């Protein structure tokens, strides 16, 4: 859908890469035309009064497992990087082409090409052809690639194609069928568990391979102190690595597993409190570049089970923004950095011209009431399923209006 009339949003506080700016934003022909002092409404413009609101970029959610428009729009998400773990997986150009079109016009889906056929980790998939079909990045899927030789060849190939590889940093041999981090909590509950060093090992290997091959890698979730330290050091050396996390790992520790609540069964599993603190520090000091929802709606058939038998994953799209705003209120980050983490950085990783309020970017825009209170309620979610680990938690921050490419989306 093309933008029919130019749009000018007036009176709000614009959250730009340079910080908050009072003023207007004008969008024309699906693109942001002017921001701040340069933006003046012109005759024929549609005018939106945003007094008292923040004007923010639409969120670019890097690494979701389902296309769930109602949940994405509720959460202010206008673009989603879709993981290849569908059934059947995104390991074939035609499927990538289909999925890349599936959200338009009001949600852009950026498929991540499966690195290996069937995501089995043994044969490279047709990555270059999938790029032609619209894949914006490569992903190993929910699991790592165990064969280091294959991983090296994958990264060399990705470097040649200049595509980022989204990795899952969990050593499969150590992780096994674990449902929890090896800890007092897992021991008390009798859950199959794996040491958190599964992440350190996987990251150390993939960083070394990225250094060898010159490839760009994005560790979708880094959840431990030691893992974050590896990322920090690698960045210092100039390795092309970015790191992400989901709100679960900065909001919750493995104490949340008590009573075997399967909505807290995640991959990687929740960590101990010290690691949660390390994630918050890493968000504050810039080691973590991206916060994503990991949106993975799962119904009762996957979740109303004994803990270890339940499928991992959480419905995170609706709560992503509100959870990141807790970091702003706690002064871990400021509002500008919040939207770097949510929109600008993930857009860069994917190489798409979106994710920030700058002239020339796609007009993906949200109005945010950062104080608006609401209650997370698993029974009344917009998402396809209500498997949120934040059930019954009071939160603040609601998106009140949303535009994709300058066209308003009904909320």
């Amino acid at each position, binding site marked *: 859908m093309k933008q029919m009339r130019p749009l000018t949003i007036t009176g709000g506080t614009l959250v730009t890469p340079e910080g908050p700016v009072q003023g207007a934003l004008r969008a024309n022909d699906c693109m942001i035309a002017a921001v701040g002092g340069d933006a003046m409404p012109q005759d024929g413009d549609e005018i939106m009064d945003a007094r008292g609101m923040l004007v923010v970029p639409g969120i670019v959610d890097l690494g979701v497992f389902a296309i769930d428009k109602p949940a994405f729009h509720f959460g202010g998400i206008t673009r989603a990087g879709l993981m290849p773990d569908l059934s059947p997986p995104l390991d074939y150009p035609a499927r990538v082409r289909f999925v890349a079109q599936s959200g338009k016009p009001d949600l852009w889906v950026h498929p991540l090409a499966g690195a290996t056929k069937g995501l089995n980790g043994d044969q490279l998939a047709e990555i270059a052809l999938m790029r032609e079909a619209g894949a914006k990045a490569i992903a190993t899927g929910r699991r790592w690639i165990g064969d280091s030789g294959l991983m090296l060849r994958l990264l060399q190939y990705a470097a040649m194609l200049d595509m980022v590889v989204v990795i899952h940093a969990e050593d499969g041999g150590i992780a096994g069928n674990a449902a929890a981090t*090896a*800890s*007092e909590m897992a021991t008390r509950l*009798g859950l199959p568990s794996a040491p958190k060093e599964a992440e350190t090992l996987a990251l150390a290997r993939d960083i070394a391979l990225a250094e060898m091959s010159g490839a760009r890698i994005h560790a979708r979730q880094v959840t431990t102190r030691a893992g974050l330290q590896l990322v920090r050091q690698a960045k210092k050396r100039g390795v092309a690595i970015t790191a992400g996390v989901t709100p679960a790992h900065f909001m919750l520790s493995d104490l949340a597993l008590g009573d*075997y609540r399967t909505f807290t069964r995640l991959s990687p599993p929740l960590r101990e409190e010290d690691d949660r603190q390390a994630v918050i520090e890493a968000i504050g000091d810039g080691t973590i570049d991206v916060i994503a929802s990991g949106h993975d709606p799962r119904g009762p058939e996957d979740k109303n089970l004994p803990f*270890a038998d339940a499928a991992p994953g959480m419905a995170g799209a609706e709560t992503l923004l509100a959870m990141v705003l807790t970091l702003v209120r706690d002064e871990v980050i400021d509002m500008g950095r919040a939207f770097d983490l949510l929109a600008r950085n993930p857009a860069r990783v994917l190489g798409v011209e979106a994710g920030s309020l700058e002239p020339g970017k796609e007009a993906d825009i949200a109005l945010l009431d950062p104080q608006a209170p609401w209650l997370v309620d698993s029974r009344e979610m917009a998402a396809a399923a209500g498997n949120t680990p934040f059930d019954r938690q009071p939160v603040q921050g609601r998106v009140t209006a949303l535009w994709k490419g300058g066209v308003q989306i009904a909320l």
Partner: protein
Amino acid sequence: MTSPQNTSSASRFPKGGQAFPHRDLIGISSLERHEILYLLAEAEQYVAFNRQAAKQSEQLAGLTIINAFFENSTRTLLSFEIAGKRLGADVVNMYAAQSSVKKGETLIDTAMTLNAMHADAIVIRHGSSGAVGLIASKVDCPVLNAGDGQHEHPTQALLDALALRHRLHALGDNAEDFTGLTVTICGDILHSRVARSNILCLQAMGASVRLCAPPALMPAGIERMGGQAFHDFDAALKDTDVVMMLRLQSERMDGQFIPSPREYRHLYGLTPERLALAKPEAIVMHPGPMNRGVEIDSAVADMGDRAIINSQVEMGVAIRMASLDILTRKARGVPGWRQDERGGDWV
């Protein structure tokens, strides 16, 4: 002797349902010390009762007890079945490992089905930690955990405590609890629900607990449950009062944990020579089934004056009778065992 009374009158425990204010028996972790002692005290009557020639009571007559076993079991199932039948209940066994679960029915649906049949108590064993609690949250009757994954096996820990206390009394120690006692639990701690329930139960009763296993079979953070961890069995045995051996749970092992049973015996098998490192009259326990020649030598298992393995089995029936008795008192209208849902007096 006739059938035991419903409640021990003139006891030093709280009156009526306050002595054991739980609908279910899911784990030792939710029990207070005095509740454990109460359950043991109630079980004592059944120990004597079971030793009579005629051991039939009508206490639970008319009640239906379902033993729903989602995992294979011989001794625990038999023990619960005998316990229910001796109390006069109608006992039905459901071997779910080979029933509708195989046809794809979910655990919750199975639980709802059991609930719709108006059981008065359901005894459940399941291979996943937390599964019994999950079922308990969906049904309207008392639920007894007969083992859930690697989480808890409360009646096993209670019967172990009862068997141990009987032997201590026979040795002239008439204490009610285990204060000052050192118990060494050796074996596959990682996969053992018996170990977890016993760690909690023994400590609640005042014992110090040592845990011994190779690193791969020792769960993380176990010290924070209160046990002292050892990898050297000889060191763990030194001056211990009780040795509790666990079997290797090969069926739960995901990958290889030890090189071979032969090597395991070399390091962790309880031989007469090793037992000599413990206190002179140290008591030997094993929850069964035993792998003779692996974790325990026959020469030790058959020491009549030291091993109480058969007594453990005997106490198992008494503990399960007491558990079924206590948890059905509300439904049977025993005075003092009903409390309004909002709290208040027990009537």
